[in-house]
């Protein structure tokens, strides 16, 4: 019985310690205020919506995809992603980008597009013309 606890306890302590350490190392916070995003040098997940009026650009030479995001308070931020436009980008209701803000724009290494139409009904704003 004693062996069991010594062995198990040892493993648990080591792994919990390692996990806590790696958790703090790999932790990424969600941030929906772009003023905060621009103010930190840490990697964050910035949530906003695509500014449709400012068209996105696909640079085929440098393989970058550039667009503008706006947060709830109306702060706009330029985002550059090393890669191509993700599927569903045009119809996304909100976009989550992971990366850092350096030298005047957000360097995204990951883009997540949220599309309500995927599993649920597409909400349409009601306004008659």
């Amino acid at each position, binding site marked *: *019985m*004693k*062996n*069991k606890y010594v*062995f*198990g306890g040892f*493993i*648990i302590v080591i*792994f919990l310690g*390692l*996990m806590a350490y*790696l*958790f703090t*190392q*790999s*932790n*990424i*916070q*969600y941030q929906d205020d772009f003023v905060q995003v621009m103010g930190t040098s840490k*990697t964050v*997940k910035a*949530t906003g919506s695509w500014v*449709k*009026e400012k*068209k996105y650009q*696909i640079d*085929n030479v440098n*393989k970058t995809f550039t667009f503008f995001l706006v947060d709830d308070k109306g702060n706009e931020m330029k985002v550059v992603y090393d890669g*191509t*436009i993700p*599927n*569903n*980008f*045009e*119809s996304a209701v*909100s976009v*989550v980008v992971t990366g850092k803000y350096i030298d005047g724009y957000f360097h995204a290494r990951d883009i*997540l597009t*949220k*599309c*309500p*139409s*995927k*599993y*649920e*009904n*597409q*909400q*349409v*704003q*009601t*306004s*008659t*013309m």
Partner: protein
Amino acid sequence: MIGSIILVLALACSTMAMVMYYLNFRGYKNTLNYGRISYHSMAMLVIVASTFLWYALLTHQYEYKYVFSYSNNSLTTGFLLASFWGGQEGSFMLWLLITSIIGIFLQSYTSKRDDLEPRVMTVFTLATTFLLLMVSPWFKNPFEFIWATPVFIDLKSINPDHLGLPFLKSFLFTDPNGGNSFIQANTELKNLLAGSGISFNQFIVDGRGLNPQLLNFWMQIHPPILFTGFGMTTVPFAFALAALMKNEYRDWIRQAFPWLLAGTGILGLGIMLGGYWAYEMLGWGGYWAWDPVENSSLIPWIVGLAGIHTLLVQRKSQNKGGIGKFAKTNLILCIFTYILVLYSTFLTRSGVLGDASVHSFVDPGMTVYLFLILFIGTFLLLGLGSIAYRWKSLTDEATGEESLLSRELALFTASVVLIASAIIVLVGTSAPLFGQSVDTFFYNEMQLPIAIIIGFLNGLSLLIKWKHTDKKDIIRKSIPSVTTAFVFTIALVLFGGVHDIILILLAFSMAFALIVNAEIAIKIIKGNRKMLGAYVAHIGIAVFILGVIGSSAYSRQVDVDLIKNETTTAFGYDMTFTGWTPIDNNTKYSFNIDVKKGDSEFKVKPVMYFSDFNNSLMRIPAILTLPTQDFYVSPVGYDEGTSNSNKNSKSISLKKGESTEFNGAQITFTSFNLGAETMAAMQEGRDFQMGAVFKLEKNGNEKDFELFRKSVGGKVEFTSFASEELDINIGLVSLSAGNIEITLSKLSDKSDDPSNHTKQEILSVSASVKPFISFVWIGIVVMVFGFFISMTRRLQESMKK
């Protein structure tokens, strides 16, 4: 209506079965038959309701919101059947259907084994009752009518014969962004239509369709298999609680064992099929992204694996009499396997992970959220409460002391390591609940040392005997396998280019596990083949992890532009883009690439198409599978080489009254031009046009002109205006309420460079090589096969005393 009624009846039967079985457990002898009848009626009703849903999908009954939302006329029969689980309501329905069918087998199984049936079935019917509540008309009912909650229906989906109905006007809405018009379906509209003698099935002639990413063969079989795995985890939970009810902890182990083995095997297969779908369909080149949805089904699977190991120890140690070792651990693990399945459902269906997952399940509403919490809460309280209640008698019966070098301890350690692995995934996946999130390296760095330990333990535990082993004996027995594994690893370092120390260790431990298992398996194959299960499963795991090392750590990727008929080389593959061909009735485009590797020639055909369903460009990769590696070609973009010649164009959006300057001219957007005629045409679905009036001004010269958005036969066209004199071309791009967008360019730009006219078609692709990725799939299939061999053996044992 019929579907909902059937489901409510099934709910009543399920509750009835639960009560009758419980009464039987409490000593009322004559209620057992009522319990059985109620359970079978429930299962039949669920099968009938599911058949009805399939029938509604196949016959396009768009009056059901679910049918309208997840299917359309163009789906083939296979996909129509698969659209059953295209949405939340249907996936709960599928879970319920499979669980009900499992219950039929479980009832027959338990009725043949002592007094198991009333206890197990009481717990099991509690689970079916909750699932039935979930699909009942109060929560996520797949038979909800389209008018029950207001739904916007695209004009395209509406029968053109009925568009002239005068009252439709008050249900017409227009999306200010896209300019599309919709009809809002609600009870009022239903009544008005009924008044004109039109049913909703006649009114709506097409549905929204299935998400194009789900239009894949694997999506037709992955959800049923995954839910079979989910459903089967209910069984060990029910057995554990049944044991706690009777306060007897010996027999349930051998009775639950085959179910746990089969359930874990099927769940593992289901998870990996999801990975294979991602690999084949999503085009990012991998099969596992540590996405919350993937993780959440992985957690119960790992806990189930841990349970298998400790159940084995308890079963073995029962030979000495008593209940055996780890009785509490096994109860807790079997309970948590199911709780974690429920937790997985909560994470993916309640909307809490909205920002964290590509599987963006939208918030289903507060009632469903609370119901899911109630669901988990009930089972968690029931499970942990029963254990707490029986704690004293469980502790009294606990037995055993074993030496450090016993197989019991090795198996227990394996369990602990697996649980540690599950906790890591659980912590990372749950982090978004607290506004946190972890990078994927969190999982990778944590799981690598665990995988190394698993490999060593896996091999070592088989060399150790039950109870006690002599140290010298182990060293002597392990020399051949350690040496072989060592040689293999050295070869991998020298010839395979593996230099990372962690990966070298992992490869070594897996090779060791593989060899020890293979050695034993070869010995057994001549003898009793029923005993092979564990070894086969462990060989599978080792092969799988070797495949993971090869395909992820040594995958290389490059983005290349393929100019038509010119050859580009990447990783030793010569690629020549030869043009595209339309496929699937001109809805998709297949891009033909000739690939040459050495003397062998292949053709790969990545596909791109525009999907109306989510208004996006979809890209499907092409995979060339060779014996040692996959060559993975994912399309990125296609350039016909005609439109990009004009670099000086400018696009701008204007509100009414605003103006902009281009090439020295002032352009003002003065007003919209929408006649009464336009409005009427819009509502009746006829062709119509909307105009925007502009004023062009340069050096005091003014000129008015108008641009149009024309809707012709359901297609939208825009006009443009050109002035030679001012050297300007103005094109309308979009027009919606209050806002328009135009592009401005110089006419002279178009003709300045004749070289622009020679078309140069370019296909941009992302090409990658994935060494030994086939080991990943082979490993899993071998592992699942091993689970089933073990299951047949344990099934025979379950009858014995």
